């Protein structure tokens, strides 16, 4: 059994605005083990960003607990938009110094993430998106983190920078024994980097498990729907048609669109249920229709 680094229990967060109430997180519980990458996947508005922000302490959850195995664990975050996540008036070196307060270390970190010493005095507007994302990673590393929330770290980047950043994150994880919560809407990217994967929909966990299990043997209809939408040039296309009924669901949030819906789905919320070692899904169909 691996050592658990982060325990999240019954996390809820609700946003109130003029438009109404948005349950960004609805009773979310999961563990993250030391040294692993947990991928969080979902469409926009599923609560994945809120989750990341709660975990690093940028947002205060309404209910629930976030417990690290050891209070001295440092946590950091890498953001989606590299242009937005660095102060345009600060030099690169100063940005990295924000977390480590040590110029020598900053230069060392910049080298570690693949920037040259000449770039330490540059301002953000002189760098490309890919380079800026490296600066953001170096800043996160400056805090000597054990745990990093990567909030869509590659989705704002050009294709040829994406794989560089992914490879860099992989290398850094091995060298520094890091644990990642990797948030992304891109299943292919998460498939590539994550050990385990967590599928979210409307603030709830739909399915969680080993990446290969979830991708190859998806249990929840929503997971299957998501997988069917991934553009894959020559893989066989798994067609998955959903319905679009105007019904209100007090149970499973996916129920209105789910082709396997039963009456019970609209009424009660199914808790996560284990299907296979560590592979859990929240669906009433698992026993009858589940597995494949």
């Amino acid at each position, binding site marked *: 059994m691996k050592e658990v680094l982060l325990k999240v229990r019954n996390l809820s967060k609700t946003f109130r605005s003029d438009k109404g109430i948005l349950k960004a997180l609805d009773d979310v519980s999961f563990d993250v083990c030391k040294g692993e990458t947990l991928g969080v996947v979902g469409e926009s508005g599923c609560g994945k960003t809120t989750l990341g922000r709660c975990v690093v302490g940028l947002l205060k959850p309404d209910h629930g607990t976030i417990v690290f195995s050891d209070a001295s664990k440092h946590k950091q975050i890498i953001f989606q938009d590299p242009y937005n996540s660095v102060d345009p008036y600060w030099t690169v070196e100063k940005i990295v110094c924000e977390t480590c307060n040590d110029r020598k270390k900053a230069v060392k970190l910049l080298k570690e993430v693949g920037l040259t010493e000449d770039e330490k005095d540059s301002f953000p507007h002189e760098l490309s998106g890919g380079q800026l994302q490296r600066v953001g990673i170096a800043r996160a590393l400056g805090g000597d983190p054990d745990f990093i929330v990567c909030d869509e770290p590659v989705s704002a980047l050009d294709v040829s920078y994406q794989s560089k950043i992914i490879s860099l994150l992989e290398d850094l994880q091995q060298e520094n024994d890091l644990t990642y919560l990797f948030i992304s809407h891109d299943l*292919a990217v998460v498939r590539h*980097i994550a050990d385990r994967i967590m599928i979210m929909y409307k603030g709830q966990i739909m399915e969680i498990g080993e990446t290969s299990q979830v991708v190859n043997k998806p249990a929840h209809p929503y997971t299957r729907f998501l997988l069917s939408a991934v553009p894959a040039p020559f893989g066989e296309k798994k067609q998955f048609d959903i319905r679009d009924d105007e019904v209100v669901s007090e149970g499973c949030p996916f129920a209105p669109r789910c082709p396997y819906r039963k009456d019970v789905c609209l009424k009660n919320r199914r808790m996560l249920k284990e299907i296979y070692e560590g592979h859990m899904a929240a669906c009433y169909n698992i026993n009858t229709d589940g597995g494949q």
Partner: protein
Amino acid sequence: MSNILTIENLNVTYRTLAGRRHVLQDVSLSLASGQIRAIVGESGCGKSTLVNTIISLLPDNAEIESGSIMIDGRETVGLTGERLRKMRLEKLGVVFQDPFSALDPSYTIEKQILESIRISRKVSMKDVEMEIRELLRSCGLRNPEEILKKYPHELSGGQQQRIMIAMALLNKPSLLIADEPTTALDVTVQKEILRLLKSLAKKNDLAVLFVTHSLDVAAEIADRIAVFYGGRVVEEGRVEEIFSFPLHPYTQALLKTIPSIEYGKNERKLMPIEGELFSFLNEEEGCCFAPRCPYASERCFKESPKYRESHGHGFACMLEEVL
């Protein structure tokens, strides 16, 4: 099948503080009705300039040096004023990346659609109501009556994009230009929009120029792909050929750099492309990809490669080995 869009040897330059910069070089493309052609490239590859040139929306400091763009048999380079407006209205439909900023937030959908019809014909809502409803339905919007009364912010991103597509098709254009129409959308919605565009192209015999940064998306929708880099078409061919036998080193590298849903952790190593993206600001002699190309020889830094084509699959590279 007739060619709806024919671009020949198009050269566009920008005047910048640092001098003239070639943003499009010798771009040639043709597109027949019913066909979907994807333009794939990263930032700064010239794909937006190409779109802006076709719809004649180039910024003031840009200039078409040479070349021609024929839309439905009519030359559009040099068109101005009323004739340009008419050409745009009759022949072209455009869908942009961000539907929310393309719709005016202070008018209902109905008003906006009616307004864009009124540009070409004097009608009232009653005359065209059926037509609009039918159009919205064909664009996959199931309750046109309800949607017409709503404001843009009351609709989801997917619905907004469907409305943009419907509005682009209002005047029954022969060419639809879709500039990254799914980039701002979720994967699940993206899939639906792609499916919609495909069926519309088939049903209406519409030529679609689909601009995207993602090879996967291009493969999902297009018949043929043109890969852009540094303002040039570096490779062009049928989707299967591009994916199975990529000829240009850039295309090859690009394919190795994308994560795939087929491979999990540690099953496949990504091969990033070294170096920084091509920028027009530091233009140099020779092949634009040479600084990042693993096979580049001295010659690549001196001469610009010629575009070669055989069996409908063309590429611009000097290396003999790759052919």
